[in-house]
């Protein structure tokens, strides 16, 4: 009976590997922001790089708030929430868009030259996820 309940070592490795995926995505996002901002500065100039960096900062904040919102939602669904109402969670989820829109508006009115860089920076989480997918493919093929 106890043999049936034991998890096989390879599955334990899989669980540990995938549980670190979110931390890896964070690291990929930071690395991408630094590397691509430098490349943007070199290729398109200072203002585009600044716009890209600001877009990256907005995208990173958005990702963090989304993660905390999903965590609160999961707490609520699994009845682990302290005393938080459902309306509060939804309001915080929606307030994310208001705050990000206000930040983007301020940036656009202050630095109109950095518009394209700002939009490119907003796709930072997608870049992080693509890097994570590539890393998982690599580890899958090499068997490390």
């Amino acid at each position, binding site marked *: 009976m106890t043999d049936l309940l034991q998890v096989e070592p390879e599955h334990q490795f899989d669980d540990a590997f995938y*549980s670190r995926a979110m931390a890896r995505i964070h690291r990929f996002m930071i690395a991408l922001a630094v590397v691509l901002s430098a490349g943007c500065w070199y290729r398109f100039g200072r203002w585009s790089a600044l716009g890209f960096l600001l877009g990256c900062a907005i995208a990173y904040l958005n990702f963090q708030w*989304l*993660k905390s919102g999903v965590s609160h939602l999961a707490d609520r669904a699994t009845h682990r929430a302290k005393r938080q109402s459902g309306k509060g969670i939804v309001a915080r989820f929606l307030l994310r868009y208001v705050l990000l829109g206000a930040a983007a508006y301020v940036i656009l009115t202050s630095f109109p030259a950095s518009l394209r860089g700002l939009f490119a920076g907003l*796709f930072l989480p997608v870049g992080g996820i693509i890097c994570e997918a590539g890393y998982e493919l690599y580890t899958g093929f090499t068997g490390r």
Partner: protein
Amino acid sequence: MRYLSRIFMALSALCFAMPAFAQGGGAETNWVAITAGFSMAIASAVCGLAQGKAVASATESLARNPAARPGIQFALILGLVLIESLALYTLAIIFLKVK
């Protein structure tokens, strides 16, 4: 919720009403702006529906099986990010084409 949906419907009607009042006789219609507005509206609506579906399924799964929380939460975050990025693609294309 019904009250909120009525407010949003009234706001959307007002958004359509303002350009209609502003049109003068003989002026050319700016189709790029109109199609940009419609495409953003469609993208936002479909992404909102998709996010709602994803969150509903995830919360249902979490309520049924709380032990599977890490995997479900991770998949939900990834799904929401990718769905949001689809709306962002539309916004970026609209900004680049209309500007």
